[in-house]
């Protein structure tokens, strides 16, 4: 890792007041005579039940910052370095909003991240109070960008976009195998994420020729998945479409293995574990063959492999949080570059009108629509094959062909 030089400019905000105090005590040490550093905020759950996601996200964001700084910083500002301030949303919406206030006070030009929909909803609104541009990473609720908030943008795809792609690909998958799958069971966590996704599926699947046998909900955290799996055993659906967070996904997959429930496919949309290398590494048998339609880095982009290596160098398992937050920082830096000033309004204006790269995400050019949603955002379909997570759709990114039905 040659790019991670000594000047890591990562500061974790130590609580709201501490940040304010730090801000008044003067900027951190600046090497040599340089233009004032540009501060970018990253809001992630560094603690709480989503802490793993926040950790992976911060690695990606820091990687981007180091890369940009090593390449000479923001050129339009005379090579100003970027300083990344990480705010801990503590995995809850209220703390997220409070951290936005702290980041505002610390003088950031823009904020990226959010991760969960609930947190992103309040955080973007808190940022709007200060006209602070906020680029949401992977939070998927449609409503995040549908609220006339001029400061709010989203890099990744929303629910509607993702489910549309996921269903198209599902049909393709099924057709290629001669349409063996006809019945579906939906298993979802009862939070914003899982319930929202299940609702979309319930509306769309019947029109596409699938029969929904049952929709099973469970709370997060779940103590036990054996009843859920028992119901699956009784229903014998061709497909199981789950939407839950990491632990529950793992619990369900392992219990299915135990109870010998083997549907034609487990087809996750934004699956909590289905495209996580931790799951694949720890429970290869349970993970084998699982499909996911999720945020995912472009496998043909060499930086993606570098990010994976950087994560693994810290003894952690790679997941999508790293590449998408890498890309969030890249897009924000580009917007600052284009604005030519570390000015919130100017950056917002650029985000609204200009076009950007998409970092390591497979979006081509990033262009934000009227509502702030990246119109080119695209989830990728992956499948766990022989202990590796391979992209199977769309074709231009595909690393291998899908195996379906899995139990055949």
């Amino acid at each position, binding site marked *: 890792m040659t790019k991670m030089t000594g000047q890591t400019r990562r500061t974790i905000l*130590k*609580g*709201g007041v501490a940040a304010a105090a730090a801000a008044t005590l003067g900027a951190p040490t600046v090497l040599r005579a340089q233009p004032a550093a540009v501060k970018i905020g990253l809001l992630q759950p560094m*603690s709480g039940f989503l802490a793993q996601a926040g950790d992976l996200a911060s690695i990606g964001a820091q990687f981007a910052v180091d890369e940009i700084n090593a390449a000479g910083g923001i050129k339009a500002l005379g090579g100003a370095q970027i300083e990344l301030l990480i705010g801990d949303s503590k995995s809850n*919406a209220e703390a997220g909003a409070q951290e936005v206030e702290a980041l505002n006070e610390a003088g950031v030009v823009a904020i990226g991240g959010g991760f969960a929909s609930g947190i992103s909803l309040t955080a973007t*609104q808190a940022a709007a109070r200060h006209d602070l541009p906020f680029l949401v990473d992977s939070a998927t609720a449609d409503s995040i960008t549908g609220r006339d908030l001029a400061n709010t943008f989203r890099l990744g795809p929303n629910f509607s976009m993702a489910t549309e792609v996921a269903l198209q690909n599902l049909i393709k998958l099924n057709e290629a195998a001669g349409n063996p799958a006809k019945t579906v069971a939906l298993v979802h966590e009862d939070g*914003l994420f899982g*319930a929202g996704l299940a609702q979309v599926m319930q509306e769309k699947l019947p029109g596409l020729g699938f029969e929904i046998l049952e929709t099973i909900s469970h709370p997060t955290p779940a103590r036990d998945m054996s009843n859920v799996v028992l119901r699956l055993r009784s229903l014998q659906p061709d497909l199981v479409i789950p939407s839950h967070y990491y632990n529950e996904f793992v619990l369900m997959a392992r219990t299915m293995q135990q109870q010998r429930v083997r549907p034609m496919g487990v087809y996750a949309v934004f699956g909590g574990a289905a495209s996580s290398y931790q799951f694949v590494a720890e429970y290869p048998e349970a993970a084998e063959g699982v499909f996911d339609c999720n945020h995912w880095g472009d496998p043909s982009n060499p930086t993606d492999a570098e990010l994976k290596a950087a994560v693994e160098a810290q003894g952690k398992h790679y997941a999508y949080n790293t590449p998408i937050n890498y890309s969030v920082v890249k897009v924000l830096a580009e917007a600052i570059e284009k604005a030519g000033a570390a000015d919130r309004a100017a950056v917002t204006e650029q985000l609204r009108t200009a076009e950007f790269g998409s970092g390591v995400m497979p979006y081509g050019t990033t262009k934000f629509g009227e509502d702030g949603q990246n119109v080119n955002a695209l989830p990728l379909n992956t499948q766990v094959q022989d202990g590796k997570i391979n992209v199977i759709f769309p074709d231009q990114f595909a690393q291998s062909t899908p195996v379906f039905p899995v139990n055949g």
Partner: protein
Amino acid sequence: MSARDLLLPLIAVLVLAGLAFSGLSGTLLNLLIFMMIISLAAQGWNILGGFGGLSSFGHAAFFGTGAYTTLILQTSLGVNAWAGLVAGVLLGAAVGAGIGFLSFRSGLKGSYFALITLAFAEVLRIASNSAPITGGAAGILLPLDYGFLNLQFDDRRWFALIAILFVGAALALTRWLERSRFGAYLIAIRENEQAAQALGVDVFRVKLGAITLSAGCTALAGVLYAQNYLFVDAHVAYGPWISIEALFAAIVGGLGTMFGPLVGAVALLGLGEITKMVSGGVPGVDLLVFGAILILTVAFVPGGLMSLRQRLTGRRRPRGETALRSEEGA
């Protein structure tokens, strides 16, 4: 209650308002607002737990009802925020009366009362997490729209001022409790229910009145919370965190005293910020300190911070102490 009785609440309001307008940074102003909200919740808790000796572990039930009510009315019926506030307080009070009716009719007190309030709050949390009217797990988001009628202000000092005024009103309410027959009856019940009954106190009605007032006050805190963050979900509204914060602030500050909950909220949240700063943001350390303070308070200063002041000035009023120990004789 005389005009003189209102002097102290008035001074408190002036000091706090002066602080709000003293050019605090945004973060500190937010902290002040949050302190006022927790203070209100704790002031509500104090009416039942401090004056009435009935420790509730489920004040979230009232807080959440206040928060949800105002946001639901505003987002789906277009009611203005002030009407939402009134409705939130009334509905919160009604939930309090309902829970009180069931619990007190069955004669629950002590641990049983604490546990049943906790269970009610949990039922509400689970239900609101899936009911469509509360937005299910998504919660309810109130759009940003500044204006006095919307109870949203571009300059947050005004919001702080409104919160401070409500805290002042709750202080006055507490002072009234200390000066009224209702309050005397409530304290009498805390100290000895049977003796109070023998003296003509309608125990059931006084308790019911206390939980209704208490719930209304905590519901108001919920309304302000919702109005401040413009968002609630099941965890924020009905989660155990607020029940615990309310109880902490009231006990640490001084049970059954007028200023206890306010002092407790300011001290605990202030300390929480300092702990976070010192611990370098290690999660949990601030709450760990809270827990230790709670135990130390119960063990060594059962009268709370307010009793420390009285000890220093030599006045003795062992109220809080007996509030904690009231069950001994029963």
